[in-house]
């Protein structure tokens, strides 16, 4: 099949970018979207032109590296599918496809379709963990976890941190991402001791990183390749309110023997 592509090209963070037209010829419907871009890039290199930069790695939908706005939709038209797992059979011969990077204030562009998602890491660093140093653990079966809680925690933990939720949100909000981690840990008994601090610190970092707030558009859920449910956002908001009202800083008196 033959397609017309308009791709965002931007040399680096300092310069401004523009959409550039490319013709994609003889594309097989069995190619993945990124393989289609590989073919374009091989053609560009042959002509001595700078290939299109895009993030990608595992190409099996789990590492979360890839992520493109395809015709205005994060990861393209197919439900529950990352860009690397989108295949060209989802398009028709003669289609025009617009390809852009994630656009959000908190995700500055590095080059072409590559953005900096470091803000996500900083949200996790603010408290997205259980503080258990290596060697501290008890026998794994000493603490039974109801299957329903474990399953729900797994639903939340399935997040791959790709950033599609932010890119598709009119407010550039990271609440689906943040709430997924807060819920994953908050649903498990192991996550209880730090539950209040976690939600307070992670939400504060989210705001500091210039992500917007949630106004219930639910675009995030619609594009999420792992189908993370917006109920987790509600859960985070409840936790946040509860923690705001009841959190007590541990008293830190030194001493001991």
């Amino acid at each position: 099949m033959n397609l017309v592509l308009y791709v965002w090209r931007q040399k680096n963070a300092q310069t401004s970018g523009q959409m550039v037209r490319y013709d994609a010829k003889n594309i097989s419907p069995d190619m993945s979207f990124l393989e289609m871009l590989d073919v374009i890039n091989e053609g560009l290199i042959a002509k001595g032109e700078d290939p299109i930069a895009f993030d990608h790695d595992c190409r099996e939908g789990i590492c979360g590296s890839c992520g493109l706005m395809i015709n205005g939709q994060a990861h393209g038209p197919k439900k529950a599918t990352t860009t690397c797992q989108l295949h060209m059979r989802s398009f028709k011969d003669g289609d025009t496809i617009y390809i852009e990077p994630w656009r959000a204030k908190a995700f500055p562009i590095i080059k072409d379709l590559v953005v900096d998602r470091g803000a996500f890491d900083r949200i996790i660093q603010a408290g997205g963990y259980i503080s258990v140093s290596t060697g501290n653990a008890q026998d794994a079966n000493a603490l039974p976890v109801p299957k329903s809680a474990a399953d729900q925690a797994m639903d939340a933990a399935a997040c791959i941190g790709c950033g599609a939720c932010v890119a598709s949100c009119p407010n550039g909000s990271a609440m689906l991402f943040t709430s997924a981690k807060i819920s994953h840990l908050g649903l498990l008994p192991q996550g209880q001791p730090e539950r209040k601090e976690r939600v307070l610190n992670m939400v504060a970092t989210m705001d500091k990183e210039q992500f917007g707030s949630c106004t219930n558009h639910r675009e995030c859920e619609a594009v999420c390749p792992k189908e993370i449910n917006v109920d987790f956002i509600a859960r985070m908001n409840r936790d946040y309110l509860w923690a705001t009202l009841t959190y007590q800083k541990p008293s830190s008196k030194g001493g001991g023997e």
Partner: protein
Amino acid sequence: MQLDAKIPSGPIEKKWDKHRFDMKLVNPANKRKYNVIVVGSGLAGASAAASMAELGYNVKCFCYQDSPRRAHSIAAQGGINAAKNYQNDGDSIYRLFYDTVKGGDFRAREANVYRLAQISVNIIDQCTAQGVPFAREYSGLLANRSFGGAQVSRTFYARGQTGQQLLLGAYQALARQIHLGKVQMFPRTEMLDLVLIDGKARGIIARNLVTGKIESFIADAVVLGTGGYGNVFYLSTNAKNSNATAIWRAHKRGAGFANPCYTQIHPTCIPVSGDYQSKLTLMSESLRNDGRIWVPKQKGDRRPAQDIPEEDRDYYLERKYPSFGNLVPRDVASRAAKDVCDDGRGVGETGLGVYLDFGSAIKRVGEEVIREKYGNLFDMYQRITDENPYKQPMRIYPAVHYTMGGLWVDYNLMSTIPGLFVIGEANFSDHGANRLGASALMQGLADGYFVIPYTIGNYFANTTLEKTDLNNPNFRQVEAEVSARINRLLSIRGKRTVDSIHRELGKLVWDKCGMARHADGLREALEKIPQIKEEFWNNVTVLGSGEEFNQSLEKAGRVADFLELAELMFMDALEREESCGGHFRKEYQTPEGEAMRNDEKFSHAAVWEYQGEGQKPIRHKEELTFEYVHLAQRSYK
């Protein structure tokens, strides 16, 4: 090159305990004075960086991805082994040890494997405490499933995303240490060389992939957890950017490279569909718990699967290996698939595929149960192939998946360069000539959480390190060499793209050093490889400059290293005149077509020492002795 494995004395079940007591300690206040570089942030790298930081060491951690959470461990699907014996089905540390040595076709070091089996139980405890959402029974207790090469259920899992969940656990532990200021993280930064001072590993040269800046980093020890070299085949289940540069550069600086010819071909991957294909996708081995593998009995039977009646199907694994059936180890299953396809009975358009059929399992337990167990894998299969595996059998074919070879390490996980430690898939240590399913996650985490934090302290306590800084001429010199190489790559401006040469290399490695190898083919490959190298260094084109984000340049450096590594693989495969595990030499097989080892001549790890550009490397041996596991021809019949 001295190869002292430093295996502690005493009975095998006491070796690790004894060693832990014998090792010297660094007191908590002094740990703060030591700096450690960890390269790679997968299961091994992230768990090592976090655990060492928890102890008090100052850690710098590097990864080429934009976030440490994206390392390729994340793609592991099926599970992680541990000798918990929660199922009361006869498992034990000794049995996991035994299965792993046997599964590796008696080419692994017994003491290391025993320690791995011992530690396996702590890993599950640690990960559970971190909040890894392992699958559970209705009782709230942990669930298990079976994997290849074992007759007990010892595999813990989190749906089909076990690697993801374990990695996120390690990533979160790492994030905590970054927050506490004990780990400094360098994402989008690629190690390009190793710096030695006074014969010890003291730092690395790395390239900032965003700005292109070449920088030096100094430390008291360097830990490589940079994964395997499966992408030497171009098409593999590895991530596109997985590469061998870190271990290859270390090899060229003096680290012995062990058993490069031991590569694992995973039996259940989605078959190749076209020339444009950029990578292969694995379907978890766990599918073999319920899926039955078959091909038509008749050559050239082109009927759709559902029209082929039971009596015309050959369930060849069940037929050849009745006691393990579809759960034979990976090397055995892969070779059997190749044999039936070579016999003209392969399925699909290319004839390079076999069926993995869930028909009888769906009939037995219902579609819902199968969906709950494997839903995400079935969805992935359907997305890629546009076929519904609930209605028609999956088509699968073997693909490169893992490399058992890697940098040689002693019992302390230290390479032949003092102060250079190698962990996870990057080292050669525990899997012998074939790795069992669900053991890679186990090894990566064992090395990172529970071995390196102890052994690195012993190294520091016993070593006097010269006071030095980045002005040391060795840093200056290696940095200059790295820059010169980048400039050379950028100045060729030939006609071929990096990918096209990488594909050519991959095809050669797959054809001559893939599932079956022969001396003639290997010699041919050894003649061919200098030509490809020359083509690369004279005719590759890398556009742009070194002072910017330049993905072509990144790829070019990696492929240049793969070209050299491939040559060593061919040499190693040629010299190992036997068949064992993933290394199958056509000349050495039993009348039934099984791998035939030569224990008298080859019961050793082959360790290669680099001798300089254009010089033949020297092959050293670490003899393997088996005191506990009785050497036998592996039988899964």
